[in-house]
């Protein structure tokens, strides 16, 4: 044993010093490098896993939203189509009604116009007759060159009217 110790110069003080060196290395590496690195790596792993899960959930939410959007759009389209058809029908009915009303109104207007024309014609005829009578009387007076009395005038005028 002694020769072994003297051959290799085994010195317990150096052995303790080297052991302390290793313990320092272990503590320094553990507290300054391994522990913080492991902590940050596990945190990153958690963040990535959370990110992936969130992305999956978001994709699901987006897919659901897309489906809902498509459903809403399709419903809206269908509803719009129905509303359009109803509107079209209603508009056509209204159009027919308006046309009918207009026709009636036009017919009324035509009838009233006709009536007015006839009345005007009758009035004009009367006026013309009166004027003609007056003219005839005057012409007759002139022809006869005599002044008839008023009774004769009226009698003549009546006769002329009755001619018609």
């Amino acid at each position, binding site marked *: 044993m002694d020769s072994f110790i003297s051959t290799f110069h085994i010195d317990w003080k150096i052995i303790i010093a080297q052991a302390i060196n290793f313990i320092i290395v272990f503590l320094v590496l553990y507290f300054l490098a391994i522990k913080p690195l*492991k902590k940050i790596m596990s945190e990153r792993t958690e963040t990535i896993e959370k990110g992936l899960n969130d992305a999956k959930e978001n994709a699901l939410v987006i897919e659901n939203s897309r489906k809902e959007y498509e459903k809403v759009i399709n419903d809206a389209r269908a509803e719009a189509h129905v509303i359009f058809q109803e509107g079209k029908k209603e508009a056509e009915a209204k159009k027919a009604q308006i046309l009918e009303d207009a026709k009636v109104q036009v017919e009324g207007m035509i009838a009233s116009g006709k009536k007015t024309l006839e009345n005007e014609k009758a009035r004009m005829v009367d006026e013309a007759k009166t004027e003609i009578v007056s003219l005839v009387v005057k012409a007759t007076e002139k022809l006869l060159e005599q002044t008839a009395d008023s009774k004769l005038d009226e009698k003549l005028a009546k006769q002329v009217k009755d001619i018609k």
Partner: protein
Amino acid sequence: MSTTINNSNQYNENLENPSVEAFTTESTENTHEEISHEATLYAEPIAHFGSFTVTNALFTSWIVVLIIIVISIAIRLKIKKVPKGMQNLFEMIIDGATNLCNQVTNDERVTRKAFPIVFAVFMFVLINNWMGIVPLGGLGLIEMTEHGKAFIPLIRSGTADINGTLPLAILSVLGANLFGVFSIGLWKTFNKYVNLKALGGIFTKIRKDPMVLLTAPIMVFVSALELIGEFAKIASLSFRLFGNVFAGEVLLASMAALIAYLLPTPFLLLEVMVGVIQAFIFAILTLVYYTIASQDHDEEHDEKDHAEKLAGAH
């Protein structure tokens, strides 16, 4: 330049007469008196603080500690959640090493506890191994010995000295046993080496199984062998590392003595690899000891017995 291994009592003389003459480089070889460059089996003393002798191997270990402290502080200061540059490399190393440890232990719980120690062992041994081949061999002291002037290099790998590898091996084996105590309990760890359980079994099981008279002494003997094995582990770990690293340094010195240029280059590369491999072997063996210490063999036997009983019942 002689490369003979000197195992004389020169060390003791150096302790008594530390006459440091000058810092020198290899160019001082051609002075009026020839200076011997001997690769000694032990680390040479370079300074004294009272009764404490600082050897070149210890000095190199201090440099290694300093390097590791600087690297660790740099990591701590630069660490960010989004890694950049060197942090990527360190994370890759830590992640790769953890995966490797998991493959060895097959148990993430054991890996989590043993990894920091195993990684520290690896780094300490690796940088120490590499420090032995850095081109600073010319930096040293010239001391007077009984054989004349001798060159003492300031840098010598801490693992090229048995005083450097022995504490590492002791801490590894001791640490593994402590880990065993915390993992499976003091009683079970103690019974691995002094099998009182088997001895007690002679009295409790003899009626059921008379063969216990034969098996119990064998088990006690085997456990005693386990105890011897723990010392063998210390010896094998420390001498393997010391032998390899020291042999590498001697090999390099021999090659440089033959032809100083180009010839040592492939051997330098070889030593870089040897440095990594030896550090890896030391670290992996430490991890294996930790794994073995954390396993309860009795539990396995109990499980087997239970399974056999169940099979018998069916």
